[in-house]
């Protein structure tokens, strides 16, 4: 057991880096357990379980993450457990820490990560993998699970990337599948027993952890490949280890504690607002969307509980904006009741609501007129594909008529800024579909001038922005077997689209770099052979890969080749019957259903949403939510 030390960063060091507020803590609503801290200061030791919650990106991003706020509260609830926060130091601070041998510390008690019993990461995107290694490395924790001893923390992670964590399998002792509110504490409880008995047998603890529903212990499994390098299987190395790990979900969202007193950063973050969570899951079933499958089934919170949350959170934070979070705001059935309640409670407070992913209809227009802050900002649509054919392929239940009707409403309401999100490289995409993107934007441009003429509005130039991202085949989607489009083909499509809108001055085109998307696909569908690649990349200086200006594609390609692997191995088409590196994880939605959805995609057949008609995806096995409404 390492004796407690308090890391002290000098004033000069803080003044030498950008945004020193990232590294000092002291925020409103922060939780510091004084009894535990006193114990640490006097004895250098505590019997409580100490969890360091790491977010593998910079402070401003991590502090806007709801999962971290939720689990911070949950893990600080029991007397015998405490949870503190740590973030990735930006490269300037990273350098200071390495040069001066300052270990990465938590913001609450300034303790080095290697002092904790558990180091837990919430990982929202694959490109954050190298930052996990950076944090462990700076925190003095051995990077590989196999190299850790009883002296070292148990390193765990959760989040959407956990469903295929194979590329990071070497680095995590245990992985949470699904929602963490309950399973986090179950793991902490086992660590408590391990700690109470003097931390004798780490291996035995890992075996025990594997018996918790929803916990995956990578080191207890071995991967196999055929001679051509195709993945064949992942098997437990001993008896008594589950062959399938089923994700955990919270059955009743009203019944779990919600962080109505979240930590409020002193400095500005990505979003300076409080959040409430309307529901989990999505009834829509877009075939490319991982979130749409992995969070099934849809479970709603009641409008009453949400309204109470919203009132409490405004009081405890002082924020002047409340974000209503979900994958599709308009699908929340209690939305009128909730927004009415909140607007009434906030009367005279100048607190506004932020409603992302709201479908524009009469109700939405009325609501937006009541919320002043949406006035200036533009309205965003995500048709994802340019033609009806391709929208049917991806099961995006939205027609051109829907879009134009909504756009008409917002133009008539006085807005003139529209953002349109599309994806390039979707399965079955042709140049006609690419042309469809330009056609739609041009129709919207024409519509603006038509309405201006009809209504005799002073004509401004509308601002129509097309953004294209690139399709990335993700595990646990109907398109998990698909190939990613080649860089050459994508380049051609991008140039074509650009040429089509060139003469239209009010249409702007933003696009996303190809390289990051290719690498994201490699990581998303990677297997355990990627672990040494990620480690080598990190050693060569790759961190903050999610930041375009920091991403080093050439380095990654080199490292991949050095490890005897190719990009094509991971982004190419996979046979529908072939074993997948993530087959040992059960998200409820069955592989059979995903294959059926893929077939329907190729037939251009739409699957009704969960509320229209149950498609039999398999998520009903959790016996809750929309499946039992």
């Amino acid at each position, binding site marked *: 057991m390492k004796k407690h030390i308090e890391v002290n960063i000098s004033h000069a060091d*803080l003044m030498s880096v950008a945004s020193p*507020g990232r590294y*000092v803590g002291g925020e409103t609503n922060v939780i510091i357990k004084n009894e535990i801290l006193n114990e640490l200061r006097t004895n250098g030791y505590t019997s409580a379980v100490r969890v360091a919650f790491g977010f593998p990106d910079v402070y401003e991003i991590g502090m806007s993450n709801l999962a971290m706020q939720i689990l911070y509260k949950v893990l600080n609830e029991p007397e015998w457990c405490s949870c503190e926060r740590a973030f990735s130091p930006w490269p300037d601070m990273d350098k200071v820490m390495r040069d001066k041998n300052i270990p990465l510390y938590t913001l609450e008690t300034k303790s080095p990560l290697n002092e904790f019993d558990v180091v837990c990461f919430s990982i929202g995107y694959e490109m954050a993998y190298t930052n996990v290694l950076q944090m462990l490395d700076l925190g003095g924790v051995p990077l590989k699970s196999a190299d850790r001893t009883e002296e070292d923390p148990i390193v765990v992670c959760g989040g959407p990337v956990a469903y295929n964590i194979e590329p990071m399998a070497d680095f995590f002792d245990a992985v949470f599948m699904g929602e963490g509110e309950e399973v986090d504490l179950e793991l902490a409880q086992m660590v408590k027993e391990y700690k109470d008995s003097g931390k004798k047998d780490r291996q035995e603890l890992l075996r025990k952890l594997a018996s918790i529903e929803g916990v995956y212990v990578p080191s207890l499994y071995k991967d196999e490949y055929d001679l051509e390098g195709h993945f064949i299987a992942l098997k437990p190395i001993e008896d008594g280890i589950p062959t399938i790990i089923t994700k955990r979900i919270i059955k009743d969202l009203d019944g779990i504690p919600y962080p109505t007193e979240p930590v409020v950063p*002193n400095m500005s973050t990505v979003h300076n607002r409080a959040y409430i969570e309307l529901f989990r899951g999505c009834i829509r079933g877009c075939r490319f969307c991982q979130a749409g499958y992995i969070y099934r089934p849809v479970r709603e919170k009641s409008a009453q509980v949400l309204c109470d949350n919203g009132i409490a959170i405004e009081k405890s*934070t*002082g924020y*002047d904006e409340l974000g209503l979070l979900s994958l599709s705001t308009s699908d929340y059935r209690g939305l009128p009741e909730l927004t009415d309640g909140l607007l009434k409670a906030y009367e005279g407070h100048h607190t506004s609501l932020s409603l992302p992913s709201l479908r524009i209809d009469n109700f939405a227009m009325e609501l937006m007129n009541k919320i*002043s802050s949406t006035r*200036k900002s533009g309205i965003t649509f995500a048709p994802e594909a340019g033609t009806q054919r391709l929208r049917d392929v991806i099961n995006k239940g939205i027609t051109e008529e829907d879009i134009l009707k909504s756009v008409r409403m917002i133009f008539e309401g006085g807005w003139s800024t529209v953002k349109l999100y599309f994806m390039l490289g979707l399965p079955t995409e042709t140049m006609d579909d690419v042309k469809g993107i330009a056609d739609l934007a041009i129709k919207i441009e024409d519509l603006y001038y038509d309405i201006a003429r009809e209504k005799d*509005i002073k004509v401004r130039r509308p601002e129509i922005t097309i953004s294209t991202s690139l399709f990335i085949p993700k595990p646990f989607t109907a398109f998990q077997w698909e190939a990613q489009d080649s860089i050459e083909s994508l380049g051609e499509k991008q140039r074509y689209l650009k040429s089509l809108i060139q003469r239209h001055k009010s249409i702007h085109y933003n696009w996303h770099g190809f390289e990051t998307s290719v690498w994201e696909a490699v990581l998303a569908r990677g297997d355990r052979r990627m672990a040494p690649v990620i480690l080598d990349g990190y050693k060569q200086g790759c961190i903050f890969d999610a930041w375009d200006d920091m991403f080093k594609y050439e380095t990654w390609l080199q490292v991949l080749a050095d490890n005897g692997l190719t990009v094509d191995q991971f982004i190419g088409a996979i046979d529908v019957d072939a074993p997948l590196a993530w087959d040992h994880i059960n998200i409820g939605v069955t592989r059979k259903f995903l294959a059926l959805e893929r077939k329907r995609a190729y037939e251009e057949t739409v699957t009704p949403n969960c509320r229209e008609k149950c498609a039999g995806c398999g998520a009903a096995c959790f016996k809750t939510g929309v499946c039992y409404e």
Partner: protein
Amino acid sequence: MSKKKYDERVLAMTKQQHLVHYVLRTRFARKGAVSYIGHLDLMNLFGRTVRKSGLPILYSQGFNPRPEMVFALPLGVGIDTEGDYVDISMSVPIQPEEFVEKMTPLMPEGLSIVSVVYKDEPKNSLMSVVTMAEYAIKAPGITECVKKIMEMEVVEVEKKAKGKIVTNDIRPQLLELHEDASLPDCVEVLVKAGSTSNLRPESLLQACTRYAGLDPEDASNAGVTRLCLYGGEYPNIKRIEEFT
């Protein structure tokens, strides 16, 4: 928005009566973690805290209403203070006692209210009142260094402005060295501050390394505390509370 709707809105706004600002001139202090945030962040932090108090804050008009607050002088990242000021406007008169009572338990760690006076509609903006600031600067041997600087006639330092390096003379901005209050490693100085002429403590530290042999490492590690802000014309020093 249609022309008609727009006109209606403008009319509604012009019809609105002029709102009286019932001001609480608040002297505040900060130290510790909260000293490492920028001025805008500090303003937002104050805004959130006032909002939490439930006091009848006056909000700015327009599309994006914010609590009406005026800060006397921006406070740089990493600088502590014992005597900065903010005017916080209320829509009805609020007694300083009530304000302090409601705000104190809500103040973030390291940020505190020192004293509050009530001002009925101040005539001068708080920002225009400030002309001088008193700083305590801690660094080994700093007092001797500043003494040397004060003996010079011209003290040129370099400053980055809009990407260019500009040289200017800070000597006229150095007003007093308070000998009796200073220790060898902690100097107290009175300098010009505010919108017309402002000496930043970094510039003084730079001068000390350049002309008086202060170790650059010590200079970057120097602890700076703004002790108080003042108004008036030197040597006629007036407290900020005195201004109406």
